[in-house]
């Protein structure tokens, strides 16, 4: 289906360099290690919950790597830790949302170019369209990259977003991580017709259905899509086929809806292992490099864990102070009442 996007329109990038390939590997290891560690943190009581992205590292790192944070803007769901890490977002600030410190995370979305973590399924897809149309109105060349899942594709907002983007020729890249599941519902009971990419044609939007576990394919496709959108050709949709190897979240029990055998059969080769084999085969990296990358990932995780553990609660006054830019007398009265009754001041 990859032919839907004319190859010519995405000619911006040549083949990946060895440095780029090694960097992709390092990122994927860092993400994998942080992700699996976060589950352990939850079991140890460091954080109350987490939504793992195990198995989606190639899709997330590959797409996030294409972003130009000087001009693009990214709209995540609740599962894009790998994208955030790839974009260089402060990971303590990012993970704070899973510590129940602040909904949306403590990072600065304007500076990091990553919109706040979004818990409403399909909630931010339209935001990407609005932001992208703003680029057109401002004669800027930024591109909006919006993530959503196979489950999210069922929401009306996704349809409205695709139609708006296509009518307005907004520079948006719709990036679907089709990980086979929306909690307990498999894609075939969710996505009629079997493919989100197939929907795009109905709006005249070019689409790429790609192997989401091949980080090189993901990065190349995303670069093509960015180049297409950036040149004023309107939106593109990428459907990255991958597999949610873990539970939906730390409170989910996949054993209730899929067997371990099924998991093994459906998940295919681990995307990280796949890149490792490729780098080895192409002589781009060796075991020493892999060991170094893992050590770096471990050091990084430790630093982030320390940061998360040190993270205190936000002061309760922020509940009131951050509602508006211009506060109101009613809210100030409530804040005063709260201080009196809860902080006894």
């Amino acid at each position, binding site marked *: 289906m990859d032919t839907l996007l004319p190859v010519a329109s995405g000619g911006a990038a040549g083949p990946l360099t060895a440095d780029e390939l090694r960097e992709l590997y390092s990122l994927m290891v860092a993400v994998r290690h942080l992700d699996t560690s976060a589950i352990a943190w939850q079991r140890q009581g460091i954080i109350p919950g987490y939504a793992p992205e195990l198995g989606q590292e190639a899709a997330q790192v590959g797409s996030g790597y294409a972003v130009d944070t000087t001009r693009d803007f990214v709209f995540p769901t609740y599962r894009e830790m790998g994208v955030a890490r790839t974009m260089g977002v402060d990971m303590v600030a990012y993970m704070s949302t899973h510590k129940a410190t602040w909904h949306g995370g*403590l990072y600065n979305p304007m500076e990091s170019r990553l919109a*706040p973590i979004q818990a409403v399924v399909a909630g*931010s897809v339209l935001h990407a369209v609005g932001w992208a149309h*703003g680029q057109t109105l401002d004669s800027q060349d930024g591109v909006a990259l919006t993530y959503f899942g196979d489950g999210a594709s069922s929401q009306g907002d996704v349809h409205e977003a695709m*139609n*708006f983007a296509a009518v307005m020729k907004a520079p948006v890249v719709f990036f679907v991580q089709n990980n086979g599941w929306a909690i307990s519902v498999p894609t075939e009971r969710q996505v009629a017709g079997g493919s989100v990419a197939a929907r795009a044609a109905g709006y005249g939007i070019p689409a790429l259905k790609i192997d989401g576990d091949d980080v090189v394919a993901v990065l190349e496709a995303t670069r093509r899509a960015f180049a297409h959108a950036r040149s004023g050709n309107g939106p593109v949709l990428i459907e990255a086929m991958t597999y949610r190897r873990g539970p939906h979240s730390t409170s989910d029990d996949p054993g209730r809806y899929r067997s371990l055998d099924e998991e093994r059969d459906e998940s295919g080769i681990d995307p990280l292992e796949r890149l490792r084999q490729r780098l080895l085969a192409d002589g781009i990296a060796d075991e020493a490099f892999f060991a170094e990358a893992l050590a770096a990932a471990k050091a990084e995780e430790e630093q982030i864990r320390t940061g998360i553990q040190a993270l205190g609660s936000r002061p309760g006054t922020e509940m009131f102070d951050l509602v*508006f*830019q211009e506060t*109101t007398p009613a809210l100030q009265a409530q804040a005063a009442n709260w201080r009196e009754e809860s902080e006894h001041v």
Partner: protein
Amino acid sequence: MSNSILENVDAAGDNTADDTVTNTAADSPASTTVMSMQQALNRALDEVLAENPKAVIFGEDCGRLGGVFRITDGLQAKHGPQRVFDTPLAESGILGMSVGLAMAGFHPIPEVQFDGFAYPAINQIVCQIARMNYRSRGTMPMPITLRVPSFGGIRAPEHHGESLEALFAHVPGLKVVSPSNPHEAYHLLKYAATRPDPVIFMEPKSRYWQKGEVDVSRHDAAGSPTGAKVMREGRHLTLVAWGAMVSRCLQVAELAAEDGIDIEVLDLRWLKPIDAEALAASVRKTRRAVVVHEAPLTSGLGAEVAQLITQSCFDTLKAPVERVTGFDVPYPSGDLEDEYIPNIDRILFGIQRVLEYKRG
């Protein structure tokens, strides 16, 4: 109305009225021109577009047609199709897109065509627009002014005469305002559309074509644009209303005056945050209050207004605050709308109940 009201009115008369002159429509300075609310809103939007290059107007039929109520008439021709444009027919799309435009530094002024068609956009309004400033810790303000032609009274099809103020007022992160006449419409829209926070601007569609004096040079003689406004001074009872019900309450006050009942009419203007001070000040004086709205009774904004009054004036109140509202029924078809919207008779009955109230 029965004569017995007057007994109680006399008892109420012992409260001396505050004589401060407020800037009601009766004042007519030289800078005043007569225009309809539709014209006043159109002029306000025209000026907002001219003053703020980041202001953009969009919605269904807002552009070429100028809106089904012509509020955006001529604005596309004047400011260009990038500043004023039509969207596809999808309210969630319109409001969701507004979020992204606000993130990109714009001041979106979207329109939903009729009140009842705000419902498909509620998810984006409540979960996104109202929360993005909070979620982003103040780094992503949402200066979105959502215009909603509101309330009933025009004998329209289903869903074209809804009152969503109680819903909007309950949502943390939203501000809500409704003008009652052309002067208020002009100034409140200009004020709302220059704020850094989301404002739901509820336009009383039955008043669009009513003319009134607009002093474009100043809003209020004194006081804040965010407060309530005394539209008529009175000593015996406070009528609280907003939107289209304000002019009806002023009519009622005139009628009651013929019976010697001196009613104060308070235009709440801001439905969130509510000007609790103004409610208290008025009712401390009059010691009686009736709140009037078109929306259904139960869990309507009248309950909030009544409770705010009761909290602040418990000792001085002579009777429980009365609510005269729409019923707990779906807004009916044109033939029955006069039975549904509080009419003069029902408001007078409500006033009568309050004035006749005797402690048991």
